[in-house]
């Protein structure tokens, strides 16, 4: 049982996850930020590795990716930084990024290396079910990594069932069909979508992401799922002066 499964076994509501881009605002900050987030109470983390063409991301995360690339962040550098991860951080860690950098690094090598530094799961938005299942799933499974799939309000029930079957930690529910960094509007149709998912009684826990910015949107999301993820809003904070000292207040503000 990896750290993610242990976490979900011990706690199934109000789970808070934070996303940040590795290498932003500077190199050698990944583990420092992760450690600070754990101390302030985050339940698990997503560490983004940057890509030149992040089609699913809005301006904030695009900007952080550009800066990270300029700073010299790469998968190689990230894995070097993460070498000390498990001596300092104990909550579950996921890596999140686009497929091409992984393909260049080598999918098998990437999975091995991720497991070696203590990563628990991977989120690759542009690696769809078919390709994952047909070509790569064994590398993930052999290395004990959970692969996280995304579900949107447009995803069909049949496909959600398939995703549930292929998942072994949690399912990432998108608050709406959008790129990252837009505010969650809890319209009737979104609420209906959450209710539809709840009624499906999936075997995996669900975590809502995209558009969660503060304690109120976090609380709303937690009405329908086991927890929620904050990304762009936190990445914005990392762009501010003295961000390390603001992390604790930010996280505690989300879940008072």
């Amino acid at each position, binding site marked *: 049982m990896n750290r993610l499964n242990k976490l979900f076994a011990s706690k199934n509501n109000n789970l808070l996850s934070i996303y940040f881009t590795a290498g932003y605002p500077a190199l050698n900050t990944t583990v420092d930020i992760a450690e600070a987030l754990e101390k302030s109470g985050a339940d698990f983390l997503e560490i983004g590795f940057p890509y030149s*063409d992040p*089609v699913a991301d809005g301006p904030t995360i695009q900007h952080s990716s550009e800066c990270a690339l300029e700073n010299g962040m790469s998968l190689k550098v990230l894995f070097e930084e993460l070498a000390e991860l498990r001596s300092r951080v104990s909550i579950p860690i996921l890596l999140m990024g686009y497929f*091409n950098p992984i393909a*260049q690094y080598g999918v098998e090598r990437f999975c091995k290396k991720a497991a070696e530094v203590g990563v628990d799961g991977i989120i690759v*938005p*542009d690696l769809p079910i078919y390709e994952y299942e047909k070509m790569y799933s064994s590398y993930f499974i052999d290395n004990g990594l959970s692969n996280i799939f995304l579900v*949107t309000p447009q*995803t069909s029930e049949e496909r959600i069932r398939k995703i549930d079957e292929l998942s072994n930690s949690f399912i990432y529910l998108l608050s709406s*069909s*959008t790129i990252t960094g837009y505010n969650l509007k809890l319209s009737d149709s979104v609420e209906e979508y959450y209710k539809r998912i709840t009624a499906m009684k999936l075997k995996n826990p669900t975590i809502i992401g995209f558009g969660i910015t503060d304690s109120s949107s976090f609380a709303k999301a937690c009405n329908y799922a086991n927890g929620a993820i904050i990304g762009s809003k936190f990445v914005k904070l990392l762009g501010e002066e003295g961000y390390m000292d603001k992390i604790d207040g930010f996280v505690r503000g989300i879940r008072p």
Partner: protein
Amino acid sequence: MKIKVCGLKHPENINAVAALQPDYVGFILYGKSPRYMANLATDALQTIPASIQKTGVFVNESSENIDRLVTEYGFNAVQLHGDESPEFCAAFKGRVTVIKAFGINEDFDFEQLKDYANNIDLFLFDTKTKEYGGSGKTFDWAILDQYKLDIPFFLSGGVGLENIKEVKNITHPQFYGVDLNSRFEIEPGLKNIEKLKEAFKIIKNKTQQMKYGVNEQGYYGDFGGAYIPEMLYPNVEELREQYLNIINDDDFKAEFDDLLKNYVGRPSPLYHAKRYSEKYGANIFFKREDLNHTGSHKINNAIGQILLAKRLGKKRIIAETGAGQHGVATATVCALMNIECVVYMGEIDMVRQAPNVARMKMLGAKVVPATSGSKTLKDATNEALRDWIGNPVDTHYIIGSVVGPYPYPDIVARFQAIISQETKAQLLEQTGKELPQYVMACVGGGSNAMGMFYHFIEDEAVKLVAVEAAGKGVNSGESAATTALGDEGVLHGSRTILMQTEDGQVVEPYSISAGLDYPGIGPQHAHLFKTGRGQYVSITDEEALQAGLLCCQLEGIIPAIETAHALAQLEKMKFEANDNVVICISGRGDKDLDTYINYFGY
């Protein structure tokens, strides 16, 4: 899985169906059927190859008449569609293949089939109707689980392109084949050959015969697929499910052909360039896509996709553009169809191609600058994809090249295939031969090249030459020569060859031509390159500009700088005197006048 095409009655149509090589063809000899082959000459079936079983379909006919018709038409099989008894069937067994048809509904008693088991060769299970066959409707195929005999069966009734994939999923051990009829017709008895072709392709998964074509999962060899975020999945899936049905539909084709002819001005001329022919020692032909309305080949695809979008019920169009040609083409067709149009264009390209920005605005499109990344074509594509993520229901994304997630590369290739289709006919008329020795075109993403290659790809005697932009030189660090500099990876939703760093970051390409500075190529091009079917070369800015000027001076044609790359390659080729060489003049040079002027100092 065997394929039977049933209900033929017109000689030319029979030959066209036979050319597809089904396993069985069926002729209905029942007077009440709209597909009754009355008055068909007895020798009309003689041209059908012996590998195809000719089947006579009868309903409660006398055995004398069946015998007579079997002899007259040379049937190899009889299909008995009425209330024929086991004994009646047995009389034909051994002489011809005997197929006994039954109409199935939820109350069907499979027990009654036992008595037929030793007296026939095949069953055919059709949808139960009051009349005999021809309902065009399916029955619930799950019922077939109740069938336990060991006589193989054909499945019939309502099989069409929209459910053919479900047919492929039938795992019944006695499932023998599928009977295609009314869902593949223009009118009763007249088959739609294009639709049948699609069905054959799906059923036979013809990757072998179509060595360079796309398979069902959207792959060309190692390349293609749909590497897209889940947010785009429903959009792409909707297209994937519907595009073949829509574009093979007769109404669609009629509207597409009409617009190509009367709005675009097709067919575009195939011009025998005499001074070029003299200079290069071969018969050089120009396929004049520059003469199309809006000045390039891009309009072919834009017309096709706007008709597709209309049939999908979309209310809004988005597009990306590099040089602006595709943006102008898209803005044009949106004006034509009165549909809202948003074009994403790199901020840098907007400056380089200001006249095209103005054109798009005049045509009523909103031009949105892409300010992310390198602010050129690839970023415009990213922005368009982001827009589509946010607008999944009412918006269609008109991709301008043979790139992007499957089915886009196939959609765009099909709409551009008109280029090679016309070329074949024009070559035949002008030279007496359909196939040239060479076809040549420039490649950015590769849509004009794919259109130029499309109908020649499977004819391996035709050499395909694709010309990329080397920019300031392949090794200068400022180039767009993707096959020379790229590696395999994933860009804009498909596995292909792209220019990237060791860490998998996309490298910004460079070319003087805004239409060629794309860091990838379409997945089918990647496949043609990797298999060696196509020759991929590159031409520098300078070589292209010189070739553009030469074309003005020798033939009185100012080509787009993109096209000038293909023309420049002629300098490097060695032809035989009788070689026929077709080069795609993908666009006209008006939009590039500033660049030409700056370079030559006019």
